[in-house]
Structures are given as structure tokens and as C-alpha cells.
């Protein structure tokens, strides 16, 4: 059966690209604000490092951390494997899902798509740096109160994206929220809770949980 209303039947590469472009109208493709400008900020003299292991000094959560990695190692792997900071998760590994979101120099960044060597000289903030179970950041507390988490694998990334959103826009508009959190994906379906968190932070931390 080859029906002409199912474009998946005998589609061509051209059709696939066309369909992908149309489907791209979903906001899931939006990048967090700041990511696009990340590359633009990387100017200056080209410096060649590697191919062997490189000693790096990274400023993470207010502390200097020494890591020894190949130049190809991402910030995400440096955090998770070298420093055991495993709050940022590896999910898509291709800058699609936001589970690895950290804040670099005040901007939300996908740590899977930034090399550790590129993060030298920047201030890196991870989920572990903003609070802990006994002393949670307001946003973390509101994620708990509003049940904005189920399996919890996307949660640290969402918390960091939410923090970066409010750091930049204390009273975010709907468009700010869409842009600020549109680059993070959840499979369990916790968006209702996350919207409640955003509403509560906007009201100064009062939650209806």
C-alpha cells in the first residue's frame, strides 16, 4: 500500500528535508538564549593545544579545579568523569536536550558542546554549586514543591536553565520563558510543574504546590 498522504512512503531525501524543516516549527528546536552568542564570544588569537593530554585549570563553583584531559574532551565529560560533578547529565550529547546545561559567565550553555579547553578563564556554575539537599537554592526548592520532576534526569539541566533565565530576566515575559527553557527537554512530562516553578519565582518564590 503506497498512499500519497503518508509522506513516509517512498519519500525522497528532498521530501525528508522539507518535512524536517516544517516540523522544525515546533519550539523544541529553540536554543537557550546565550548559546548562539557563545561562539561569537570566542575571538582572539588561535592557540594550538594537544593532541595529547592537556593540563587545565577551570573555575568551577568558585573554586579552581585542575583537570588533565585531551583537547577533544567536552566540558560535560570533564565535569562528570574528572571531577565527579555528575549533576549535569549526558543524554543526547548533541546540543538538543539541555540535560547538561551549566552556566558559563552568566549564560546557559550546553556542556556537551563546549570543549573543556574552551572553558578556561570562564566562570562555570554547575547544579552542585547553587545548592545542596540540605540547603537548596530557591529554584531547587520550588522544583520540589511544584513536583517539577519525575525521573529527575532532565531536572538539573532545567534548574540551571531556569536560574539563568531569572538571572537575566527577573520578570520574564512569555517569550523570555519560551526562549530560556525551550532548549530543554523532558520525557516524563514535567512541564506543568516547571511552568508552576516559573510562575512562583516570578511572584518572589510563592508557590501553590
Amino acid at each position: 500500500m503506497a498512499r500519497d498522504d503518508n509522506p513516509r512512503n517512498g519519500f525522497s531525501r528532498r521530501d525528508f528535508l522539507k518535512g524536517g524543516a516544517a516540523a522544525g516549527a515546533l519550539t523544541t528546536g529553540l536554543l537557550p538564549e546565550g548559546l548562539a552568542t557563545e561562539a561569537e564570544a570566542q575571538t582572539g588569537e588561535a592557540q594550538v593545544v594537544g593532541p595529547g593530554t592537556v593540563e587545565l585549570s577551570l573555575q568551577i563553583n568558585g573554586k579552581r579545579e585542575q583537570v588533565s584531559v585531551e583537547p577533544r574532551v567536552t566540558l560535560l565529560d570533564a565535569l562528570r568523569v574528572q571531577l565527579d560533578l555528575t549533576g549535569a547529565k549526558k543524554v543526547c550529547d548533541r546540543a538538543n536536550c539541555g540535560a547538561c546545561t551549566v552556566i558559563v559567565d552568566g549564560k546557559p550553555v550546553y556542556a556537551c558542546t563546549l570543549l573543556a579547553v574552551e572553558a578556561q578563564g570562564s566562570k562555570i556554575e554547575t547544579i552542585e554549586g547553587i545548592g545542596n539537599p540540605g540547603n537548596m537554592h530557591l529554584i531547587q526548592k520550588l522544583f520540589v514543591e511544584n513536583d517539577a520532576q519525575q525521573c529527575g534526569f532532565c531536572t538539573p539541566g532545567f534548574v540551571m536553565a531556569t536560574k539563568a533565565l531569572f538571572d537575566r530576566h527577573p520578570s520574564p515575559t512569555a517569550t523570555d520563558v519560551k526562549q530560556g527553557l525551550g532548549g530543554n527537554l523532558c520525557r516524563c512530562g514535567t512541564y506543568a510543574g516547571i511552568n508552576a516553578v516559573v510562575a512562583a519565582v516570578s511572584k518572589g518564590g510563592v508557590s501553590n504546590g
Partner: protein
Amino acid sequence: MADYNWPEAGKRSLIGKRISRLDGPVKSTGAAKYAYDIKRPGMLYGRMVTSAHAHAKIVSIDTSAAEKMPGVKGVHLIQQPGAEIKWAHDEILIVAAATQDQADDAARAVKITYEVLPHFVNDEAKDKSPEAKPAQAQVTGEPDATLAQAEVKSEGYYGLQQVSHCCLEPHGQICEWEGDQMTAHCSTQSVSPVETQFGEALQIPASNVTVMSQYMGGGFGSKFSPDRWGIECAKTSREVKAPLKLMLDREHDQASAGARPSSYAKVTVGARKDGTITSWVSESWGSGGPAGAGSPPIPYVVQVPNRKHQHTSVATHTGPARAWRAPNHPQACFITMAALEDMAATLKMDPLDFFLKNIALTGDRSKIYEEEFKIAADLMGWKQKWHPRGEGGKGPIKKGVGLALHTWGGRGHRSNCECVVYPDGSVEVKIGSQDIGTGTRTIIAIVAAETFGLPLEGVKVSLGDSRYPESGGSGGSTTVGGVSASTRRASVDALNLMFAKVAPTWSVTAEELEAVGGRIQVKGDSSKSMPWKQAASMIGASPLSAMGSNPDDTKGKLNDSGVGGVQMADVSVDVETGVVRLGKLVAVQDCGLVLDMKTAESQVYGGMIMGICNALSEERIFDPVTGRLLNGNMEFYKLAGLADVGELVVKLMTGPGYDDRGVIGLGEPPVISPGAAIANAVANAIGVRVPYLPMTADRVLATLAKAQKGGAA
């Protein structure tokens, strides 16, 4: 003597309240350690080499270059030359190395040659399938005769594509050996059963296996077994004599670690002019990979008196099917609700009136569906929003509403637990269950704390470890009913043992005592009362413990099975771009006694959102030329984002008539209807049926183009 049955509404201090999940703080601060996060001393990293072809015979495997690469500690073959590969990304071998990058490098250096065989991946084209297995038709009444005589007939064609589970934490584990003892830190929905399965597969006593999973990043039905990667990881770990972490990469995970079968159907419905449904004749087919796919229960819920259904299982060279949240129900629901809504449109009836007219066909739960439809209609503003099909507005943005109904079982699974009260007053519930994100930890604590009259913090829940009493896997909405019942029974028995120790203090019998507000006291006499801690000090030097099980009909009626729910959607469709936007989705759901209103509602929101992804964006797309999965990533395998889901409204049916049924699972039901309700809303908006889920922009445009050319949609 404490009673096993759930406390009455007025006497519940925790049950049914809005309680935040206990593991919320560790999750939202990144402190929770998932399998992917765990690091063991001396741990190596593995990468699987998988088939490049969808159907092939392995001719040769050359690992010599890979073995010499930096950091490589071992190569373990899973399939040998001569083996037949049945899908792209079928696993062939594992490379173990000191770092993940080294394992990945070495995996790329493995050379495999194949004899490529013809593949078949287009499951919709059943006539071209080399392996299509038609089943006997299921017949009730006189479908052909009544259809021939029907006053009104409606014919339709419907199809749902395969979808992946797309768990954010990929499948995988760390395996480590200590002598002949193997410990696996797994991303699993099933710690107790996986222990036994590991033992069988490795041919070692199950008592030598321990499976642990404190936190896991999503399963949705795809993480019930140790899996080939688990078993082969354990074998490789034994060979390289080091703990081995093996997590699937995203593309491999999407291609091999589970699919929901596709389903296509041709349906003819017969009815009287007054809207009474008389007959149903359908054929369906679909595939979930090499083993094909069984029949969805069609027609779904609405038991048309004269009906015939025939299903054909179609084998494809695609990664195998796994249970996917509410197996077979979303497919059956979409096909049935769309066909019935098409009949309503043929009759020019409001589908709400049409469904209500035929509600008796839904059987035992028809009164509940009726009540739910009325509540949902109010919450949606259905009567104001519904219009005859195609009258969705004059401009390019067309609006429409649609509805659907669904059912599920959700009876509590087999569960055992131990409840321990220590002389210092602390309480621990030990249970070989797991919290897959549904809030299992939290509801166990609620049940135990409620029973002991303690605050939530007074109870420690120990789970996620196969050394605790055996409990079932978390699937099919069976966990909450199972673990709440075993916990209640163990807690009541432990409390009764305590009562026996305390009763002599006031020269009363254990039956005269109660535990409330952190105290044990003589019922109705607050002068004879002591704090919990003081009571606990009377149990002696050793802790007191009791076991509880489910099922156990001798100790209270605590759970039940069988729920109904309805959903209504409103959408806007841009007929110029084909983009469907969800305005609002209303879910009204019956689920028995709710233990934690907050996490229960989260299950419904989560199911709705997953259903929205099914309806609008997610599908596995296979390349007809190579047979490979084209979108084994999260860029083109599209999940909805925060701004894609519209307004969600959840109403749980609770109170008298519902609570007294006991606990019933809630994970599956809400995911079933969204596809059908949204598809019906789209048909209502644009005037023609988009026959496929997901209703991507290209499909909507193709449907509109076909309708414009005059073809029947």
C-alpha cells in the same frame, strides 16, 4: 487492633494530601546518583559495536587493530561470523578500555564485513512484507450482515508510526565481580526480577547477583530485563577483571532499546440514523520489528454488538518492540476513536452526543465515563467550542475540538516488604522495588507513616536493591497497588506487635490501642497515652519486624483493577503551514484511592505530554534504501518542549464511590487518549481526517492536498 483496610476519609492524615516527593531535593540538586553517574574503583568503560546493516550475515570480524589501541583492555564478541543480523544496530561486540573515548576510538577501528541481505522496513506496506502472519478474525454477532443493512456507513483508514521510548538516561549498567559475586548498578524498572534473570543468563546462582538502582532516568516499559548489553557487560567485566560501565550511545539506544509497534487499520462502521452504532468491521496490521506485532484490542472499549476484527503481524528489519507505556492501548484507542468520530461526522452529530448515546457499549464503567464526559465538557467548554466538521474558521488558522476515552487495569503486582521498628523509635520499610520517577518512595513512606501515626520523616524507605524482599517490576501501573498493600500489611502487623508490648502498661488489650499523632494510646482516652519513642523503647533490645505481601486477601481489601478516563483537546491548525498547535487538553481520570495527590497528578500530566508527543511530533523514521533509523537522535526524533504542550487540565475522580475501591495504578491510562483526542480535534478543525499519527506538518499538508484534489481523506 489496627485494621488492614485503608483509614476512612476523615481519619487520613497523609493519604490523599499534596505531598512533595521525598527524593525531590537530591534530584533537583544533582546529588542523586544514577547508573550513568556511578564510578567504581578501577572501572573501565565499554562501547558496543553494532551492525551497520538492517539485514545481513556477518562474514568476518577483525578486532586486531582495535585490540592494539591505547587503553584497550579487552574485546568481547557477542555474535560470531555467520550470524544473521536482523536490524541495524544489532549488537556484535563490546570493547572495554580505560576511558570512554578510548573505547569509542577502538570501536571505530573494528572491521566487520557483511553479506548484505534484502531488508524490509516499511511496515505500512504489509503486502510487500516477506513475513506477514495473518491471525484468525475475531467475530462477535453478525458483523457482515448488519453492516450490509446499516442505515449509515463510514469507512476510514488510520495509522500510527513506531515510536521509541527515548528515556533520557540511556539503557546500561555497571557490572562488577568480587569472586563469584556479581553486582550490577542498572538503569532498570525491575531490581528484583533482573537479579533472577542475570543469574539464569550467566549460569550462576541468583543469590550471587545483586542489582541496584536508587535512581533511574526513565524506562516507560523498556527497562525490565538485564538485556543483552547487561549480560554481555557482566561477561566482559569478568573477562577483563574490572568493573565495567556500559551505557548505550543515543543512536544505539533509539534503534535497539525499544519501540512501540506501529499499527495501521481499515475500518468500516455501521450505525442507525439516530446514531446507534450497530456494526464494526476492521483489519489491522503493524510491526514492532523482527517479531512483528500482536493485535491491539480493536474496537477499543466501545463493544459494538456486531463486530469483526482481523490482524496481521508484519515482521520488519527494525529494532525489536518492547512494552511501551500502556502497551497496545494508544494504537487501539486512536483507531477506534477516530473511526467512531468519523461516523459521528458522517451523521453530522456532535461526537459528545454520539458517544453518550452509545455509552452503554462501554460496559461496566459506562456510568463513570458518562460522568467524566460531563465534567470534561465543562472544563473544556465543549458545547461552546464544538462545531460541525470543517467549520473551523474562515482564515488560515482553523480551530477544532476532539475527544476520546480509554481504560486500563492497574492491579497491584506481587510485592513483599519488611517493616522494622527499632527500639529508638525509628522505622524502616525494606522493599525490593524501585522508584522510576513515579513517586514510589514517597507513597511507601506515606502508607507506613499513616499506619504508625507518625510524620513522614519518621519513616525511612529502603528500596532499589535486590537484597530487599522481592517485589515486582514497575510496569503496567502495577507498582502503587502492590507496594502500598505490602507496606500497609507489614506496617499494621508491626504496629500490632508493638501494641502487644505496650498494652500491659494500662492493663488493656492490644485491640484497645491506636497510633495517632505520634503517640500510642487507648482508643478515645487521651489520659492513657505515650509518645511513640517511649512506646518503641518497650519493644526490647532487638528491633521488631513484620513482613507484608501482596496479594493477600486475608488482610484487607487494599487495591483493585480497572479504570476509565476521558480526554478532550482543542487545537488550532494552520492550513498554510500544516502546523498543529494544541490549545488545551483536559483529562478526567478515575483511579481509585489516591495516596499522594501531588505525584498522582504528575503522572497524569506526564502521560498527557507523552501522548502529545505521540500525536504531533515523535516517530521512528527508517531509510527505505539502507534500512537504518534516520532519526536516532534528539534533534529529529522530536519530543515536545515546554511551549508545545498548551494548557493542561487534570481532574482526578476521588471521593465516595472511587476511594473505597482501594489503590489502582495511574501510570498508563493518561497516555492513551491524547493521540485520539487531538486527532479528532484536527479533523474537526480542518474538515478532513489526517489518517496518521504523528500529525506532522507535512502529513497535514498532504492530507489537505489530497482532499483538495477530491480524494477521500
